[in-house]
């Protein structure tokens, strides 16, 4: 049996990280959580995840900056799904060159579907 896909959840709100983590772990994924973009870059450097779920508004380093750094250092090898409360979520995704976007408030089914389809595309 292969190891579960490792997902990195980047969000400064622990309640948000926890609920996303619970939903994904119930689907069999392994999750790590960090609180800002800087911690996310350190975590990715330590061990590359299969996918990054990225919040936008965070202290220290926000999602935009983090997405740019990830693209600069790893290219398209790490899929990024952005979680945003902003209007025009799809435009935001294109602007950040992210692979997917979840507009808050999203359904857990939507979350799981987005992660699953993204990982399948990568295989």
């Amino acid at each position, binding site marked *: 049996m292969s190891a579960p896909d490792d997902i990195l959840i980047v969000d400064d709100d*622990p309640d948000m990280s926890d*609920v996303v983590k619970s939903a994904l772990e119930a689907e069999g994924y392994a999750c790590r959580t960090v609180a800002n973009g800087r911690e996310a870059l350190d975590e990715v450097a330590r061990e590359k995840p299969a996918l990054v779920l990225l919040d936008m508004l965070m*202290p220290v*380093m*926000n999602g935009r900056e983090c997405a740019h750094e990830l693209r600069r250092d790893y290219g398209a090898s790490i899929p990024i799904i952005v979680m*945003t*409360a*902003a209007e025009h979520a799809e435009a935001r995704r294109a602007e950040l060159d992210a692979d997917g976007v979840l507009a808050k*408030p999203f359904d857990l089914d939507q*979350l799981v579907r987005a992660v699953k389809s993204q990982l399948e595309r990568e295989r």
Partner: protein
Amino acid sequence: MSVAIGDWAACFSRRGGSLRRVALVTATWFAAVGALWIVALDLLLRARSRDPVMVARLESTIHWAFILITSAAVYTIAYRIAVQLKRMHDVTVAVVESIGDAVLVLGRDRTIVYANPAAARMLDAKTETIVGLTAAEFSRRFLVQYPNGMVVTPDEFVAQRVFTEQGPLRYKVVLHPTERREVVVRSTASAVRPRPGAPPALVVSVMHDVTPNENLSRMRDRFLSSAAHALKTPVAIIKANVQLIARGEEVAGPSFQAIERQCARIDRLVQNLMVVSRARSHSLRLHAHRLALAQVVHEIALEVVTMRLPSEVRTEISASPVVYGDTERLATLVRNLCGEAIGAAVRGSPVTLYVSQPDRMTAELGVRYQPIPIPERTFSGDEDYDDTPLAHCATTTIAEAHGGTFGEESAGTTATLWVRLPAIEEHDVGA
């Protein structure tokens, strides 16, 4: 300007009827007096002298005298009229130039023939560079846009349309005197016609600067937009937790606690919105009474302990000042201070809520924290929405409503957000 005033004067020919009558009466009187003068003197001379040579000489002298006197009279009248016209011209120019709104006058050829000093100030240009501009040149120079960003074509300028349409015409547009400066103006254009139905001799366009109002309105819209977006995250967390509970995949306890925390977050946001909106509508009411500031701070410290925060919240009560205040509003203020400090503090560093009394008349409450160093901090720009500006505005409003002030300072690695309120002295108690 002289061209403009000349054309302007022509417009008064509507009142030409009465002016012509005055001129006619004056000329008639002049002719009657002249005729009477000639006839009367002629009769007088012929009665006094029989010598035709003497009569002729006297008549000639008298006629020369008549010419002299009438020339003097015409000179006096003309001089007085010129003085009056000059005074009217000067007053008109002074009035137009003293107007605080920008005034542009367009001539028959639809170019600008006059701009007052306010127009030069508003457009950040010399009067000489504005005068002579056509609509197309004005459009290129000042990039005229509607407030929604659409470009206003020269044909759509009210000052151009009013040449062919019934005026006055009005609209609101944005001008760009420089690359970095924009001015929002409410512009009104009126045609000045020599007589009803005639083509305009001039068009007067008055531009009133509404930039401050517009900025205020944009700030309010941004507040509402930011509040609406800030609501999405707690709603997302509540929704996801409810779905988890419904699936039975999660132990309900932590989910319920998360829901409770997010409800408190929404409540704080709504409280801040209410404070700001009531302050803006001048309907903010305080249910003030004597209260111990330390008690309010202590209760909020107990409340935040139940939350999952990235920083430990400590309290430091060095005095117990009594203030005259609204418990609920002050509690909102303390929550805002605490929230702002936690958001800006280095993760894991403690945040200290404190109460002190710097002097007999002043009570101080605030929060000290270790801020994230600036080079490490990135700002959100417009990519998402944060409720910090709203909380900041509500905190200032509550502090000022209590006769206090809100400020921030930093020294070394410590930053402080403080609110100073008037303390009640012992002899005021019960007053």
